Each structure stands twice: as C-alpha cells, then as structure tokens.
C-alpha cells in the first residue's frame, strides 16, 4: 500500500494523507488492527514536516478511522464514523477540484466558492 502526496496540488498534504488512508480503509485494503507507520517514518518518506503527518493522524483519529496507543503506535480502528459521501458526489467533487487547481485556487478558495454557490442556489 503506497501513499502519494503531490506537493503542488491545491489540497493540503495532511488532507491528501487523510483521504488516502480513509479510502484504503473503506476499500478493505487496511483492515481493523493494521498498524500504520510512525509519524516520523511517514514524514521522512513523504518529505513532509512531522506536524503535517501528526495533523493527518489527528484528523483520522477524530473520524474514528485510527486510534493511537502511545508507544505502540497508530492502529486502524475501522471505517469513518461519519457516513461517506455518495460516489456521484465524490466524482463531481474530483472534477471540480481538478478545474479549481487548474486556475490556481487553494483548498480554502475552492471551499469558499462551494459555500457561495450553495448559498446562491438555495431556494428562498
């Protein structure tokens, strides 16, 4: 199982890590009880700061995907607590993310644009 992080992508690296680990858990490639690499190992391998990987692990822990057992490391706990978005929505989001990155938008810009679009599209 290989993680890939694109430093030029508009999605922040911690979010890329979080998303890929979640996808692997949902796909069954990472089963409950599987141990994940230490923060230092993953940060070294991906060329990221330790804080970035630590944030990804923290977000995964908040989602209920992993649990941290101190010196025993980080272990997969199961699928995320929150329901996964429908597949059609993920496909649409990917198309939007690609177009947003082509015009140089950051994740924050793209999310702000989605909020504006939602606010404008609501009836009443």
């Amino acid at each position, binding site marked *: *199982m*290989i*993680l890939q*992080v694109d430093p030029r992508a508009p999605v922040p690296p911690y979010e890329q890590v979080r998303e890929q680990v979640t*996808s692997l858990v949902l796909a069954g*490639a990472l089963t409950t009880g599987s141990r994940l690499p*230490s923060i230092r*190992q993953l940060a070294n391998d991906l*060329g990221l700061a330790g804080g970035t990987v630590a944030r990804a692990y923290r977000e995964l822990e908040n989602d209920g995907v992993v649990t941290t057992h101190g010196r025993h490391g980080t272990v997969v706990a199961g699928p995320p607590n929150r329901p996964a978005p429908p597949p059609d929505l993920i496909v649409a989001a990917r198309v939007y993310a690609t177009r947003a990155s082509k015009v140089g938008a950051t994740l924050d810009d793209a999310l702000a644009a989605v909020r504006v679009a939602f606010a404008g599209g609501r009836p009443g």
Partner: protein
Amino acid sequence: MGILFGWLVPLALAGVFLGRAYADVNDGFVREWARAHALTLTPENRPMVWWYLRSARVLRTWGVVGGVLLPPLARSALGFGGDAGYPLWIFFGYLAGAVYAELSLVRPVDPAARSASLVPRELGQYLPARLLIAQRGIGVAVALGAIGVALAPYGERSPNTPLPHRGLILATGLAGLGFAFGLERLERWVVQRPQPSIHPALVDADDAIRAQSVHSIAGSGIATLLILFSFVSADLAVSDVQVLRWIMWVPAFAGFFLALVACLFYGHRAWRVRRPTAAVSRHAPA
C-alpha cells in the same frame, strides 16, 4: 625494526586491503549478495545496489585503515596514547565507515509526487533481537565492570604493573553504557531514514541495503563494546580479589576474539527483512 613494524607493515597491509576493497565489488559479487538477501536484481535497482556495495566496502576499509594508522600518528604528534587501544580504533573506524556509507547513499525521489509505504519499519525487522539484547547487555556489563574496578582493592604494585586509573576506568564504563544506547538510537535512525517508494524493485533493494547497513553498524558497535569490556576485565583481573584474578582473564582475552567474530560474522551477515503479513500487499497501488 620499530619503523618496519610501526609503519611499513601497517602501510603495506593497508594498501593491500584498500586495493581489494576497490577491486572486489564486481558483477559476481553483486549477484551473490543479492542472492543471499533474496533480492531480484533489475535494471532499476542494480545501479543503486552496486554503488552501495562498493562505497560501503571502500569506506569501511578506509575506516579500518584510519583506525590502524591514526593512533600512532596521534601518539607521534601528541606524545601520548597506547598500543592497547588499537583494536578499539580499528572497530570504531569500521563503524564510522559503515555510517558514512549509509549517509552517502542517495535514494531516488520523484519530485512530482512523494510516495511512502504504509508498512511500519521497525528495528526488529532489520536486526535479530539477540543482537539488540547483546549490545545493551555488553554496555551494562562494561559499566558494572568499571564500578567493580572502582570498588575492588588494589594493593602495592611494582612499576611494571601500575594500578588502573580509576577515574579513567569509570569514564570508560560511562562511555560504554552511553555508546550501547547511542548505537541503538543510531540503528533506529537508519531504519527510519526516508524510503521513497517510487518502484517496488527499489524498495526491495533499499530494504536489503538498509539491513546490511544496520548489521554493519551493530557488528562493529558490539565489537567496540567487547573491546571496552576486555579492558575493564583486564583491570579486574589484576585486582587483589582472588576469584577475579582467576576468572577475569577469560573475558579479557575472549573479548578480543569475540569482537572479531561479531564484526566479521554479524557485520556481514545476509539478513532478509522480516515484514508483518500486511507487507505482502505493500506494492499494491493505493
């Protein structure tokens, strides 16, 4: 005679060993090393393996040559230092060469997208547990031996058998303990060094190289600790405690022999990295 054995013979031996180090790593050597490590050589990983094996062999040999030649040079320049320390510096030089070889290995990286395996790397996968226990245990033994020297009674001595310098031997004990734990940290650091996963063949080669580096460091580190233990044992063997006078000559002499065995056997041992079962699918695309 002094110049012959002090300089010419060591220089000649250094020349022979360095010549062999530069010449030994050929295609057959690389193939044999890969076979021993269960590594399949491919066009992707062969250059990295060849480069590491050659540089590691050359740098370790330079370390040994430095350990042989630098102490007499230092003695000539500074006017102190004894022959008894020779083996220590030889093994320490080997260790320095092994560390430098690991440091100088450039692992290929894809600048467009950084990649990493989700399989945890741990020291226990690269080094047998008994070696870890041995290096901790010998470090503790050096420290305990040094305390023993500090506490043991030493009577009057003739000028030919001077008393051990207790401050120096306590410093040796402390250094041995610190060295043992520093050695383990160094090994863990090597295991945690970046392993970019841009090609499965490169990851497999990297694992084999990493295991070789860790074994070279552990073998020479344990050898260094065993030499320190020999020094401490020799000091205990000249104490006034009769039982120590009988038994401590054994570790004092055996330490030198075991150091050589540790460095040559464990330092060069082909080790196949032990991964958890999840690692079977580690090359599957995410």
